[in-house]
């Protein structure tokens, strides 16, 4: 199964344009209103804001049963639709009981984006990522997503994964302090997003000074309202 190795012995990132995955994970949950429900599916699609759903282009996933009659699934939805970060997400549930089946009404929600920032007053870091998830009823239901932040004055950005290291140190330190990194998080309007920072110092003249730190504010993270 193993083919060509891409392991980087020095701990460097793989030789790739990092990520670029234009989706994020969004959990949807269902609570069985009565016993005897065999399966629940969620059908979903998206459209520019205000446009009607095209179900022929939709997708579906079976919700996984959890304790207490709860079922959940993670939808992969785009970060942009027609180049816009805000759009409409449509979904409905298809419920199969012992001897019946029914579809719920269609729910349409606004997906919106918000910018979060990290200020680095001393210029300690060369790159910053944002790990984020919608605030769920319990932390185990969180769906981690990643956004590479863009530093003011630098044009680099990658949406889905940590930035590639390299000679970025020279570019970063040439910028005036404080360094401000801006990342984007997405979710359903009216919900909260919890996020933390991935703080990266790479490309230092002395490689021993390279480091990566995951700062989640002591486990609680930070939140932003959408």
């Amino acid at each position, binding site marked *: *199964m193993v083919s060509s*190795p891409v392991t980087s012995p020095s701990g460097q990132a793989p030789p*790739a344009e*990092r990520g670029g995955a234009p989706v994020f994970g969004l959990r949807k949950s269902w609570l069985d209103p009565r016993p005897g429900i065999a399966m629940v599916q969620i059908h979903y699609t998206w459209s520019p804001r205000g446009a009607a759903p095209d179900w022929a282009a939709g*997708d*579906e996933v*079976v919700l*996984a049963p959890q304790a207490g009659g709860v079922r959940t699934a993670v939808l992969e939805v785009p970060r942009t639709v027609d180049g816009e970060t805000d759009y409409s997400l449509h979904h409905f549930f298809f419920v199969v009981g012992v001897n019946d089946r029914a579809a719920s009404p269609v729910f349409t929600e606004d997906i919106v984006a918000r910018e979060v920032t990290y200020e680095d007053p001393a210029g300690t870091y060369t790159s910053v990522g944002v790990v984020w998830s919608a605030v769920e009823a319990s932390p185990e239901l969180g769906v981690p997503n990643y956004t590479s932040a863009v530093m003011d004055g630098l044009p680099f950005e990658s949406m889905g994964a*940590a930035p590639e290291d390299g000679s970025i140190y020279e570019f970063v330190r040439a910028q005036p302090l404080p360094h401000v990194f801006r990342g984007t998080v997405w979710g359903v309007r009216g919900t909260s997003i919890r996020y933390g920072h991935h703080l990266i110092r790479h490309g230092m003249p002395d490689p021993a000074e390279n480091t*990566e730190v995951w700062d989640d504010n002591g486990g609680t993270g930070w939140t932003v309202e959408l």
Partner: protein
Amino acid sequence: MSWYYAKGWTDQEDGIEQVLIHYACTPPGQWPDWSWSHDARVLQDFGGYPRQRLKVIRMPRDVWDMENGWSTPEYRFHYYFEVYQHGNRWTTDLFTEDIVYRDLEYADNDGWVSNICIYWSVGDWIAPVYSPMEESRVPADSEFVARNYYSYNDKERFHHEKYHMLRVLDLPHRFYSRMWGPRGATIVQQYHIGRMYPPEEKSETWLGPNGPSGPGGDNCWFHHL
């Protein structure tokens, strides 16, 4: 429509802060250009000791083959993990799997079935897929093809029309659908069959080799890919 494939990771050492899976799909015999495009997802941390992490990946039903100008339902899935540990990161080897499909036929000899799906999953029931089956003689452009069922507002009309559409077809009715997975893997599978018309005969069940049952569990067929 997609299918779903769970990829897990077990921490073998302490100090792992985050694990990502990087992946790409290519036509058979081809390799990804990681510098051009690929997907990356953060694995969900399920805790435990050793710590378990998992990501269910949404997989395509076909991949566009640019060299030949067609889409192919069999393709290659390439992936590696990126591990953040003790303030550094490292990557695993690259793994490549051949994704293959298996077409399934259900022969309804007495015309009882009006709606049928396959319920299947790669390996175990961790990421099940529910795929509508269709009788091959039903016109592909009919508004009553199985894939339109879920978003069709008037379900009773759909049941009525589909019943009459099938009734005039000679028996047996042969329903088809497709499953995917990595070569060498096992797919678990059941049918969900229903007779949704006439109303007084409405009935449905999940079906495995041992007869009717609930979805999932041991009463299922195993397909080795």
